[in-house]
Each structure stands twice: as structure tokens, then as C-alpha cells.
């Protein structure tokens, strides 16, 4: 939904109007990207200073993520993201505090209560499907969600997102075949950053454009430039509308750049040249979008500084809040295996006995 719907601010520059948006939307999109980036950068700082053993990030993907998630109806449509989807999760309604709770693996982390690695977000209320590590499995979950939406007569759309390397997994083929047969309200998004960890696209993907595979399922496929946030938005809006109208699934491939190593455990200079990395930095969607908004008069110096300030505060707040939260209680380790704890196998004798009433 547009910011105008929420706040009544209806000023629309030519740029915004061209996409059926108002300026406040564009600013909100930019703010979300900036927030994602700042949180992400902070996570690396935490890692390098020994306060977080692992980071996996979305730097370079934020433009595509914000543009593509923007047309979803929050808390109504569903999204099944992947480990780089920090900006996607912000658009879906997760807060900086929630993301930082996952980074610090605190007991109050809504994604997984500290059980999963950082980056493995999830939020039932916001209809964000829990990210798991085995890649590509989520495409089938989103397909099943779309199926249930159809059967239950809800007008929800389900979106699944992953990298181009993951799109080669068998589950993707099986899912696309199924959603296409049933013309389900489904959108498949590939964030193609040209690498699966160290393996370059030409060794992991037999076509230049993953979107070329859409035709093999009888569904539309589009390639968008992931540094063009509004092109991403437009492609996603069309796909979401089509899905909601009952005209079936489609695929969007956004060409993006991975600005960091694969994760904090990866040394990308081993397989990417300095020259390539330099080129990469020119494809950072954040300054590109900022410059676009400045040029269009949607964003001025003052507004930008204000956003920067807000974002910095939000990151500070989230970090301080999350870091101060307690670790999970080990007595809760045995919980959440089954609905009914009595279905669990009794813990081995060496276990600390769970405290009475602990959950």
C-alpha cells in the first residue's frame, strides 16, 4: 500500500507519478534501503569486534529487495525469503530490534529464539516464512501457501525469493511446474548476483538469464536491473497484480551485486579480482537510488540528513536493545519439538532438569 494511503501525504513528483506512487513512498523506500544497509554494516562491525560469530548480509541486494517486496500487502500476502533478505524483512514489517535479536541470538528473538544462525529470519504475524539453511526449499512452501490461499478463497499472493545458484535446485523445477499447472497466485524472485559463494554464474547456471526458464513452465519471466529500484517495483507490482487477479504465477530475475564476501567466513579476494570488486561497487543500489531521488527533487539535503540520522538512531537502539537481552534459558532447549512436551523423548540423564513451569 502506498504511504499516501497510510499518511495522507499525496505530493507526487513526475518520477513517483510514473509508477503510480507518491513521493512519500519513494522516500520510505529509500529509508528502508538505508536502514537495511546500516543494520547490515553494523552486523559486520559486531562480527569484526568479536561480538557476533557470524554475519551474512544483503549489501548490494537492497534495491531489488525493497522494490520487489513493496507491492505486497503487509501481514496479508506471504513472503518466503532467504538469508540475504534483510531489506525484504523490513518491508514486510520486521523491526530493526527484531533483526538484531536474531543477530545476537537472544532468547526473545522472534525469528527463532536464538536457535538459528543470523540472517535466518521469520515472523508468523508478518507472514514471513522462516528461512532455513538448505537453499530453495522455501519455494515449495510458498507454492503450498498459494495453494492454500486459493483453496481457502483468500486473495493472498505468495512470493519466494532466492539466489540464482539456489534456483538450480530440483525443488525449483518441481515448484514452478506445480504453480503453473494450477495457475496459483505466486511470484518467484531470483536475486542474481553472479555467484554461488565462489562459483561464478557460468559454472553454476547454464543460461545467462534465469528468467529464460519461465517459458519452460508456461509463465512470464522478466529480467530487471536490481539497481533500478522503481523498475523492480514495477515488475513486482505487475506480477503481484497478475497473481491476485487469478492470472497465475510469474518470475522476476533481478540482476544485483554482492558487495561483501559470501558471509563473514568467506574471503572473496581469493576468487574475485580487485578490478571486478571495484566495478561491483559502482553497482551499489543505495547511492544510485539516492541520486535518482535527489535529481527528481523527491529528496533534498535536509530530508536525507534527517533519514540518515533516524537510521543511525534506529541501528543504535536496536543494537543496544538486542545486546542487552538475555540468552535463552537452557531449560527451554527441549521445548518446541512438538506441541505437547510430553511427546518429546525424555532427555538423557546428564541433562539439566528443566525447571518447573519453564517454557
Amino acid at each position, binding site marked *: 500500500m502506498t504511504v499516501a494511503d497510510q499518511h495522507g501525504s499525496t505530493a507526487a513528483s513526475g518520477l513517483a507519478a510514473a509508477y503510480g506512487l507518491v513521493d512519500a513512498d519513494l522516500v520510505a523506500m529509500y529509508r528502508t534501503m538505508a536502514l537495511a544497509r546500516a543494520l547490515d554494516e553494523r552486523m559486520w562491525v559486531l562480527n569484526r569486534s568479536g561480538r557476533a560469530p557470524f554475519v551474512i548480509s544483503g549489501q548490494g541486494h537492497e534495491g531489488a529487495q525493497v522494490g520487489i517486496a513493496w507491492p505486497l500487502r503487509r501481514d496479508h500476502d*506471504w513472503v*518466503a525469503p532467504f538469508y540475504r533478505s534483510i531489506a525484504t524483512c523490513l518491508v514486510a514489517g520486521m523491526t530493526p530490534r527484531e533483526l538484531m535479536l536474531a543477530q545476537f541470538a537472544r532468547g526473545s528473538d*522472534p*525469528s*527463532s*529464539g536464538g*536457535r*538459528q544462525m543470523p540472517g*535466518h529470519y*521469520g*515472523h*508468523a504475524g508478518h507472514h514471513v*516464512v*522462516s528461512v*532455513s539453511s*538448505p537453499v530453495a*526449499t522455501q*519455494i*515449495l*512452501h*510458498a*507454492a*503450498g*501457501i*498459494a*495453494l*492454500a*490461499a*486459493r*483453496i*481457502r478463497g*483468500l486473495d*493472498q499472493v*505468495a512470493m519466494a525469493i532466492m539466489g540464482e545458484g539456489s534456483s538450480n535446485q*530440483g*525443488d525449483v523445477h*518441481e*515448484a514452478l*511446474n*506445480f504453480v503453473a*499447472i494450477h495457475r496459483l497466485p505466486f511470484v518467484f524472485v531470483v536475486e542474481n548476483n553472479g555467484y554461488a559463494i565462489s562459483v561464478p554464474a557460468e559454472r553454476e547456471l547454464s543460461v545467462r538469464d534465469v528468467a529464460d526458464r519461465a517459458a519452460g513452465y508456461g509463465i512470464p519471466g522478466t529480467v530487471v536491473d536490481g539497481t533500478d529500484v522503481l523498475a523492480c517495483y514495477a515488475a513486482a507490482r505487475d506480477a503481484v497484480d497478475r497473481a491476485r487477479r487469478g492470472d497465475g504465477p510469474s518470475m522476476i530475475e533481478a540482476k544485483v551485486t554482492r558487495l561483501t564476501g559470501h558471509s563473514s567466513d568467506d574471503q572473496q579476494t581469493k576468487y574475485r579480482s580487485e578490478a571486478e570488486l571495484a566495478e561491483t561497487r559502482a553497482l551499489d543500489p543505495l547511492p544510485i537510488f539516492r541520486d535518482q531521488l535527489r535529481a527528481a527533487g523527491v529528496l533534498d539535503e535536509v530530508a536525507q540528513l534527517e533519514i540518515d540520522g533516524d537510521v543511525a538512531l534506529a541501528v543504535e537502539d536496536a543494537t543496544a536493545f538486542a545486546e542487552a537481552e538475555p540468552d535463552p534459558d537452557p531449560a527451554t532447549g527441549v*521445548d*518446541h*519439538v*512438538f*506441541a*505437547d512436551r*510430553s*511427546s*518429546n*523423548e*525424555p532427555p538423557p540423564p546428564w541433562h539439566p532438569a528443566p525447571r518447573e513451569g519453564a517454557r
Partner: protein
Amino acid sequence: MAVRTFIEAIREGLAEEMRRDPAVIVLGEDVGKKGGVFLATDGLWAEFGDDRVIDTPLTESMIVGTSVGAALNGLRPVAEIQFADFIFPAFNQIVSEAARMRYRTVSGATVPMVIRAPFGGGVHGALYHSQSVEAFFAHVPGIKTVVPSTPYDAKGLLRASIRDEDPVLFLEHKKMYRSVRGEVPEGEYTVPIGRAAVRRTGRRLTVVAYGLMVHYALEAAERVAEEGIDCEVVDLRTLRPLDRETLLASVRKTGKCLVVYEDNRFGGYGAEIAAIVAEEAFEYLDGPVSRLAGPDTPAMPYNHVLEEWFMLSPAKIADAIRRLAAY
């Protein structure tokens, strides 16, 4: 009470749950017009239509993975895997996804779903239509494994499985579909998951079994009874969560335990039963916890001579009982 075959009880259980709860759907290969290769879903498509009885593509990972998604969005899918042997392409979706969703979301997201699969041998099914797969799944926290042995239990446990808040693997021994009959009451009833049944009481020796092997064990027990060996037969019914109390109470009483399973012996489900008994009933044992199981070769050859060689039988079980009783 009406008498039903094993498969009729399953079919009725499915139909009645679908009538009761519009969230229940059935999906799988050939479950629609054909009614399933064993006819377990026969008639459901005619009654409930395309939306709730879905003939899927020939893709098991998809069948399970979309069931996970559908469960996340409010349905209670009952997926059929045509033969348990073909569950392996879906292994990742079952083990990494269905069984872990609750844990990894601290119960924020849950997947109430059932996977039905015909398993077991003795039907000329050869290497890929005969396997026992329970050991793989009973080992996995987060999914329940149920193996009924009577029509009554099949229906009652299927109802309980569909109503359960967690994923359940529901294994049906295909040799029992038409060969086993039993009484099934008219009204609504469930059989709780996680409760074993003592099918025969005895003092000399406990035989632990599930599925078809319960029937073979009972037949064996009859035979040796004539020789004065008085066996108790425990039908586990649910492999996970396991009913330790019933199991251990029986062995503590008899002092001897024979675990019978059709699957390969090494690392099979019966190993866990034997290990538990050995550890927790140690002081009561007056003979080694014994296992009688399939040989450690791929299950099971098509040729009838080799198939018989592989399959357990009442005679083989009776032999094992005699040996252990004589200990």
C-alpha cells in the same frame, strides 16, 4: 460393529475427517480419479472435488514441500507418497523442513500435516516397492511416526494424526490392506498417538512388534503356546513418541524380550527398542534382548524364493521365540 479391511478403515477415516474439517485436503500421485494405486482414496475425488483431492505431478519433494506451505497457511494436508520407497526425494523437505519448522520458529510456525505411505514387503514388490523406511524418520525429532496394525487403529490413529498439531508420518503395511480385517465402530473415535497396546498377555517372554509383524508375532505366539511357551505381544502402534511405560512394564514382567521388525536389522528401528530395554530393564532381564529382523541386504528381491528368504514369517518368529525361551 462393522467389519472392515485395513484399507477400508483408512478410506473411511479420510472421508470422515474431510467431512468434519474443510481444512483437510488430500494430495498425491493418482489419488484423484484413480483413487490411489491401492484405492485408499477411492471415492474422495467424486465427493470432495478437484480442490480438496489433488492429483499432483510425479514429484515427491513438491508433494511434501507444498504440504508444509499449505499447513503454514491454514490447511491440514494429508499427502500420499505412492510407495514409501519413493519418499526419499522428499527426504530433505521432511527432515529439514516439516520436522524443524516448529523448533526453528519457537512454535511461531507449525505444520499440522500427515504423510501417508504404504510400506513393507511380501507382495512381489522387489527392491523399490517393499522397503521399510521407519528407521530413517523415527530418528528425527519433530515428526511423529505411526504404524497401525489393525483396521480399528488405522482409522483411529489416522484421525488422531490428522488432528495433531505436528507432522505425522503414517505408515501402512501394504500387505495388510486387504488381508487384515477387523471390527471398526460406527461413531467418531480416535486412538491416541503414543500409546502401545498389549495384544496378548503372557509371562514367559515379550515380543515387541509393529505393523504386519504384530500379526506374525501373534501367530507365532499361538504356535509356541501349544509347546507351553507363554508370550506377551506388544504392538507399539506409534514408533515416536514411544510408549516406554508399556514396553518396559512388559519386559520387566517377563524378563525376556524379542524385538521383531521386517526392515534390515543393522541400525533398524528395533535397535532403539533393544537399546532402551537393555538400559532401562537391565535388572529384570534373564536373557539377552534379542532381535529378529530382515537380512542386511537391499529390501527385497522380486523373485519369490529370494523374497521368502528375506521376509520374516510366523515360523521364523516362532523359532526365535523358542531359542530365547530356552535361554
